[in-house]
């Protein structure tokens, strides 16, 4: 692999972690293409939310505060009148459980920062800006503001597009027709190429893939992300200990 794709050496050095405006701007810049793809998905969410019975304002409020695409789509499938509040909240919690694991991976870089910076950044942690941030940190560019910079531009795009989709209400074509549904997969794949640290990653990645594929096939919802991530990372540690 060429050197420019970088290496993820998990060597968090708290004393070298910074939190600067430049870091946030870099995060925003690097997440901008993803935010653009997210815009198309947000339009669709807005339309779906209207069809499910939410007002455009309510859908927009949800996108701004919850800011979790997968959970919001799942919840729209459950929406009814009156709103099944307990079901909706439980579904949200389950779909977002993968965040626990993602947040844990951030900890070595955020523990040296103030609570406001750490827990404020976490509010804007989504799959994509988290993945990009982990890639950055792994290459030694340890500016923790990267996460919130990327998160803010993604949240702005997601919220705006929800409002537009919810206001238009129809005439939005299926993003799959334009290949946009594959944008996130492509980003994750490209990031993976830079995260390969050598043979020690082989077993954890195979285990993660096998568990995720099986879980996606046989379990409902989004359990496959959490289960694959847990199984793969634990396999890595187990092999190391053996």
């Amino acid at each position, binding site marked *: *692999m*060429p050197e420019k794709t*970088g290496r*993820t050496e998990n060597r*968090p050095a708290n004393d070298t972690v910074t939190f600067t405006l430049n870091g946030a701007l870099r995060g925003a810049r690097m997440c901008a*293409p*993803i935010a653009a793809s997210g815009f198309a998905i947000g339009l669709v969410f807005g339309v779906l939310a209207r069809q499910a019975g939410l*007002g455009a*304002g*309510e859908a927009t*409020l949800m996108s701004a*505060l*919850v*800011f979790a695409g997968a959970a919001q789509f799942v919840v729209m499938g459950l929406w009814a009148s009156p709103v099944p*509040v307990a079901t*909706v*909240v439980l579904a949200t*919690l389950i779909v*977002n459980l*993968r*965040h*626990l694991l993602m*947040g*844990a*991976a*951030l*900890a*070595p870089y955020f523990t040296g920062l103030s609570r406001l910076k750490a827990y404020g950044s976490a509010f804007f*942690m989504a799959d994509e800006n988290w*993945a990009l941030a982990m890639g950055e940190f792994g290459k030694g560019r340890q500016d923790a503001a990267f996460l919130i910079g990327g998160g803010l531009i993604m949240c702005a795009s997601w919220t705006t597009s929800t409002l537009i989709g919810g206001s238009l209400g129809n005439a939005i074509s299926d993003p799959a*027709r334009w*290949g946009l*549904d*594959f944008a996130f997969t*492509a*980003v*994750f*794949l*490209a*990031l*993976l*190429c*830079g*995260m390969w*640290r050598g043979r020690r*990653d082989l077993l*954890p*990645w195979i285990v*993660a*893939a096998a568990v*995720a*594929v099986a879980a*996606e*096939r046989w379990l409902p919802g989004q359990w496959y*992300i959490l289960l*694959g*991530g847990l199984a*793969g990372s*634990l396999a890595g*540690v187990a092999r190391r200990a053996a």
Partner: protein
Amino acid sequence: MRPEWQTIIAILLMTLATYATRVGGLWLASRLPLSGRVEAWLGYIPGAILVSLVAPVVVSGGLVEALAALAVVAVALKTGNLLASMLTGVGAVLILRTVIG
């Protein structure tokens, strides 16, 4: 449409639930003693999560997704450029879906 109070409550509770998952892992892991083993485990998480996100799409998605994934990996390894990789993936899927259906 007038906002309904159940809707607002549901949205606020969804916000709380989501934020709890976003800070929960960070909060817990910040309190773990960073032994070699914990640190190694945290280091394995990003790759394992990303593999879990893409594997079902690539493996169960069909020929189009598998071919597009190959194209993305080729561009990513060659250029190391995230935007180029993303555009390759979207373009490949768009073309392949038109050709293969």
